[in-house]
């Protein structure tokens, strides 16, 4: 019998705790597949965030470090200087982690152009703590700390992190992708692959923002949540490549 599909060895057998319809599971698998395809399963080091993906260290079958909230880029900046340059280092972070409490760490790792990959899961809500407003919650969207919907006059504006980081000299590659249907999942995988390849070529920091869903805190079915990302999320957070030094090099 021929095996035509299998669980990547890069993922452990530990059952994931994510809610049905959550995008974390998809992105975990994509990272695992890409690292396998690149032959980098045996020397990767991952940094897990605080947030729903806090247990990422249980799911990835490689050396893992659990970071304090928002500090993954600082940890990996130091790690980069200690371990072998061939080791893949990736930070897996949510929107509260990467764009709020860890904003300084994110921006400065990008400024330094650290040779690491940051995967930024943007679902526009605080999942683990129960649906509070995120730095990426869109205007008008309800959260438990903006119960009538985010009014920027009262609660401030959301951040377009990829666009913002693209203004910096340091990062090598920045792309925003989504996972709401199969074609987009494939595109997300290609983006992750490109990001890790750039790290393998030691070209600097690659940053992949993934528009994600959170059915539980959106109070939607998994399908409705995906539809929300497609119809509301994507127009506000347009997909695309915001920085690519490999293109600039080819010019």
């Amino acid at each position, binding site marked *: 019998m021929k095996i035509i599909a299998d669980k990547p060895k890069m993922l452990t057998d530990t059952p994931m705790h994510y809610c049905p319809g959550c995008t974390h599971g998809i992105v975990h698998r994509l990272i695992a597949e890409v690292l396998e395809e690149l032959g980098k399963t045996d020397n990767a080091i991952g940094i897990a965030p605080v947030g729903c993906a806090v247990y990422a260290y249980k799911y990835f079958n490689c050396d893992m470090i659990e970071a304090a909230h928002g500090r993954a880029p600082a940890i990996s900046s130091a*790690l980069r200087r200690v371990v072998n340059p061939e080791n893949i280092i990736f930070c897996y972070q949510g929107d509260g982690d990467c764009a709020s409490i860890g904003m300084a760490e994110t921006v400065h790792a990008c400024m330094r152009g650290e040779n690491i990959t940051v995967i930024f899961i943007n679902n526009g809500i605080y999942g683990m703590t129960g649906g509070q407003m995120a730095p990426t919650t869109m205007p008008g969207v309800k959260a438990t700390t903006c119960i009538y919907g985010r009014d920027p006059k009262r609660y401030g504006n959301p951040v377009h992190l990829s666009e913002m980081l693209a203004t910096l000299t340091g990062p090598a590659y920045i792309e925003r992708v989504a996972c709401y249907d199969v074609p987009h999942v494939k595109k997300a995988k290609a983006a992750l692959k490109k990001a890790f390849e750039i790290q393998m070529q030691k070209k600097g920091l690659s940053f992949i923002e993934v528009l994600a869903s959170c059915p539980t805190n959106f109070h939607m079915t998994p399908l409705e949540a995906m539809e929300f990302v497609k119809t509301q999320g994507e127009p506000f957070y347009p997909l695309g490549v915001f920085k690519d030094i490999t293109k600039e090099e080819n010019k």
Partner: protein
Amino acid sequence: MKKLWKGNEAIAEAAVAAGCRYFFGYPITPQNEIPEYMSWRLYEVGGAFIQAESEVSAINMVYGAASAGARAMTSSSSPGISLKQEGISYIAAAELPCVIVNMMRSGPGLGGIQASQGDYFQATKGGGHGDYHCIVYAPSTVQEFVDIMYNAFDVADEYRNPVMIIGDGMLGQMMEPAEIPPMKDAAEMFEKYHKNEWATCGHSDGKPRIINSLRIEPDENEEFTIRLYKKYEEIAKKETKVEEYRMDDAEYVFVAYGSVARICKAAIVELREQGIKAGLIRPITLYPYPTATIEKAAKNPNVKKFVTVEMSMGQMVEDVRLAVNGQKPVEFYGRSGGNVMMPADLVKYIKEGK
């Protein structure tokens, strides 16, 4: 060979000699010579330096480098050390070895930049959240700074626990003769402390190493903290350090640490010239605290009273009172705000009873 060293630079070179290869920090007076020195020195020995975006990042960079088994450190002064407390708690909970230097200045708040000892509580009683301790050293001369730093990474590695060395602006800025011991081999230290067993440096043996401080099950976390405290008991047994100075026949006992202990010594010489028998107990480790030494002195019939001397409003004095346990009077003499007491002040205090 003894050379004239500035305290801050001596401690930096001693760290390099101890096998420290990574330094992460953020500028703050009066410890700036440490990052300045490390910024060029570490590259000479194959290490690296990052001027971090904040103290918060700096301590997390230490977390990262220590996770991979490297000897890493940070240094700062009081307000910066406050910012590092989150990371220190995580480092203690993830059982990562590292060294943190605090050249104390006066607080609270932005305070001032002159020498102080106002961070005793913060250093010895936790500082960050949760049940944990750093091993805390308080050297009093530049040479002792060097010797303690040289040994600090070994202690940190031995117990997989953060070590904090506290000095003050005076010790950091002053120059004294000191000798730096020979260079330890960083790779050898990695082997010696079996870091391959736990360090996350990218393993391909199918047994992923995990550095973590999350223990979400109450029983699991309780079991962990109990184990942590067993470790502290062992540290207390083996690592407690204290100096007793002219204690044989002392009637008046100063208890002081760091630079203040030196001022007490000068006062003791003067008091003894005037026929007053004074002595000093100088804790070298502030955690673990040399309670037994003070207890023993409290039981000594010669001893009339204890005077705890600090550049603070009275912090260590609480530990002295706990150790003396009501057997003898325990008084406090302190200066704060960045002011330093003079030997003559202490002589007067003892002679006039206040």
